């Protein structure tokens, strides 16, 4: 199976290359892989995720996502790549002045889908994450777990090729966390979506086969 993500001698750094976070990393991730990335605080897990959606450019080496070399990609190509990604954040990153339904269909809005399609998809996705009755409410009116389910629904709304999740259950109680893991497992299993999750701890309830990368001392290592 082809690589969806491929890193070769990848170095990520801040401060114009002076502060290296990840150095000379090499890894490949295939379509349908479920990947956990763990490591101590400040090790560069979130930095790697940012690099994967093009927020940070590699200082050295190559990082290819969906066939696009992020080191040299133009902004318009990056924008296009992001429309094929679902991104989930620890702090949800929902637009507070928009309703839950509008938040969920943001990727469809960006892709230019009609209002009818957006409405139908919003209903379907909110039913899927068990938030149908909250469609017209605003994010601030929901609990943290509910907000994160909105975030997951948004990430799934355009059947993305890759889902990138940064500590998706970091702020949630056990019940809400289990719901989120369940949703991501389903996406990976049923849609063959590649899922990368940055987390402190791999959940014990997780039932799918997965790959595990550790970031330590600037290196990215796969645990077998």
């Amino acid at each position, binding site marked *: 199976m082809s690589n969806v993500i491929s890193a070769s001698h990848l170095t990520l750094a801040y401060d114009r290359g002076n502060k290296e976070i990840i150095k000379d990393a090499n890894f490949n991730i295939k379509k349908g892989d479920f990947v956990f990335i763990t490591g101590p605080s400040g090790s560069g897990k979130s930095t790697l995720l940012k690099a994967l959606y093009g927020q940070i450019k590699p200082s050295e080496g190559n990082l290819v996502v969906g066939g696009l070399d992020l080191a040299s990609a133009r902004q318009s190509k990056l924008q296009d790549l992001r429309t094929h990604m679902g991104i989930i954040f620890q702090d949800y990153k*929902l637009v*507070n002045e928009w309703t839950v339904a509008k938040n969920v269909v943001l990727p469809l809005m*960006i892709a230019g889908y009609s209002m009818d399609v957006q409405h139908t998809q919003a209903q379907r996705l909110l039913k899927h994450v068990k938030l149908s009755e909250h469609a017209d409410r605003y994010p601030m009116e929901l609990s943290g777990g509910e907000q994160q389910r909105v975030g997951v629904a948004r990430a799934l709304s355009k059947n993305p090729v890759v889902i990138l999740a940064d500590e998706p259950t970091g702020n949630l109680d056990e019940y809400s966390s289990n719901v989120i893991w369940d949703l991501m497992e389903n996406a990976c299993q049923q849609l063959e979506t590649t899922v990368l999750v940055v987390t402190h701890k791999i959940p014990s309830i997780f039932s799918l086969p997965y790959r595990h990368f550790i970031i330590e001392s600037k290196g990215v290592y796969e645990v077998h």
Partner: protein
Amino acid sequence: MKFIKNHLMFILPLMAILLGIEFFLVFDRTTDSYEKGLKEGYSMLVVAKKTMALEELKQLNAHIDSSENIKRESIVAQIAKGVNKSSAEEILQALPHFYSVRLDSYVSTSDLEKIKKDLEKDKNIRSVETFGSSYSSSYRLFSFIKFTLRIFIVFMGVISLFLIIKQMEIWKYAHKERMQIMEIFGAPLMLRSGVLFKVALLDALIATMVTGALFLYLKFRWAGQSGIDIMMQNQDALFKITDIAILLAAAVTIVVFAVYMVVFSSAGAQE
């Protein structure tokens, strides 16, 4: 209430800039006509030994627009009362030729001096009287009014720009998070800035309409009834329909610049 306040905070400084632009346009038009009046009301006196054609005078200085020969007979009639006809004839022959010379524009006092010198270089011209002191005081007053109004307009523009920058910071604060989230999900610039553009363009339209309405009121209601000569004489110059296009273009330019500044300074999502 907050909605109205947010709009007013952009509309008012934008209106101040548009008022400044409109004041400038109106002032330019009225001073043009005032300048024309001053120019037409002014003439210098040239005393020549022989008759001089306009072309000869124009060759001496390009500012000379027209000349009128002052009839010497009427002068002789005034100064030679009770004198016999042959003596009056002698006086007439001895008198030089007088010309009232008009200029093509309302020149500065230094230019006026130069014209005088150019004319006096000609050996046939005996003297030139520019009536410089009254010309100079009119010119200085005119220049002073022009200068102070321009300073006022620039000052108003600078203050308004600061207020607009302040409003841009508020926009940034209000829209940054949404624009960054949209950017993460791949929204193009126009989509990210769409909401802000709509708000700002609406404000630009309102500011243009209010400014236009204010000047239309000044033109059609106030100026006619004001009893102020300069206003009544220049009623037409107070507002022209083409000014709306100029004001709208200025407002839209400011809006586009302000919105893009906010959008670009908000780009680059931070976690």
